[in-house]
C-alpha cells in the first residue's frame, strides 16, 4: 500500500501540565513507530478558545501532528490511545494525501497551461480560441 498522510489534532484539558502533554506526544510517536509510521511534525498550538463546549471546557490545549504511514492500523491504535487518556477531550484524524494529490495535479495543470499560452498568442492571435482544445486533444491522445 502506498503511503498515506494524516493530520491528527487532539485537544487536552486546559489544566493539563505541560509535561503530561509531552508524555502523550511521546507515547503517540512511539506507538506510531511501532506500527511502521512516522511522525513528521508536531506542533503545540497552546491553549485556545473552543468554538463550543467540549466536556464542559471552553478552552483547550491543541496539539497538531502530521503522520505518514502505509498502514491504516496506526490510526486505529493512536485513536484508541487518545480515547483512553484522560487528559484528551477531543481528537480528529484527517487523511490528507488525496487532497494534496489533487492539489498537485491542479498546480501541474496550471503550469502546463501557462507555459503553453505565450506560444499561441505569438503565433496566431486570431484563431486563438479554437487552437487550445485541439492542442489539448493531441496532448491527451
Amino acid at each position, binding site marked *: 500500500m502506498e503511503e498515506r498522510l494524516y493530520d491528527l*489534532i487532539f485537544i487536552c484539558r486546559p489544566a493539563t501540565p505541560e509535561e503530561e502533554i509531552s508524555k502523550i506526544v511521546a507515547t503517540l510517536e512511539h506507538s506510531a513507530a511501532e506500527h511502521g509510521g512516522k511522525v513528521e511534525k508536531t506542533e503545540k498550538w497552546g491553549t485556545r478558545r473552543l*468554538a*463550543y*463546549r467540549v466536556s464542559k471546557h471552553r478552552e483547550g490545549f491543541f496539539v497538531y501532528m502530521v503522520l505518514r504511514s502505509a498502514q491504516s492500523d496506526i490510526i486505529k491504535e493512536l485513536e484508541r490511545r487518545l480515547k483512553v487518556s484522560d487528559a484528551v477531550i*477531543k481528537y480528529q484524524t484527517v487523511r490528507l494525501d488525496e487532497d494534496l494529490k489533487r492539489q498537485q495535479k491542479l498546480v501541474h495543470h496550471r503550469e502546463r497551461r501557462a507555459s503553453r499560452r505565450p506560444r499561441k498568442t505569438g503565433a496566431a492571435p486570431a484563431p486563438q480560441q479554437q487552437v487550445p482544445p485541439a492542442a489539448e486533444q493531441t496532448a491527451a491522445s
Partner: protein
Amino acid sequence: MSDEPIKASPETPAATPAPSAPRAEGGSSGGAHRSEGHSGGGGGQRREGFSGGGGGGQRREGGGPGGPGGGGPGGPRRGGKRQYFRKKKVCRFCVERVDFIDYKKVEMLQPFVQDRGKILPRRMTGTCSRHQRWLGEAIKRARNIALLPFATEL
C-alpha cells in the same frame, strides 16, 4: 439584509414587468408569478414571504418616491427603474488560485461562515461551485475539532 441584492440579481434583466403586477394583486395570486418564468418568479415570491407581514407595507412606500438612498437594492426594484447594476461577484479562491482549502486556517474560513456558524451560500459569497465544495468540507472538518462552531450557544 445583505441577501436581498443577491436574490434579486437573476431576475434583474428578465422580470422588468414583474414588480408592478404582483404588487397590485398583493400576495394572493401565485399564478402571475409562475407565468413570468422560473427564475424570476421564484426569487420574487420567496422574498416577499421572507419579509412578510410588517415589511411589505413599508417597502411599497419606500419604492414610491423612486428608491431613496437608504433603500439600496430595494428601491429600484419597486420603482420600476432598473439603473442599479450589480457587480459580478468573483470567486475569491479562484482569484487567489487556491487549490487546497486548509481546515486549520480558521481566519480564512471565517468570512464564509455566519456569526452563528452557518455556512454562507454561494449566492452571497460568489464562490464557484468547486471551491464551495472544498470550502464546505474544510468548514465541517474545522467544526469537528472545535475550531468553528456548529451553532453558537448563549
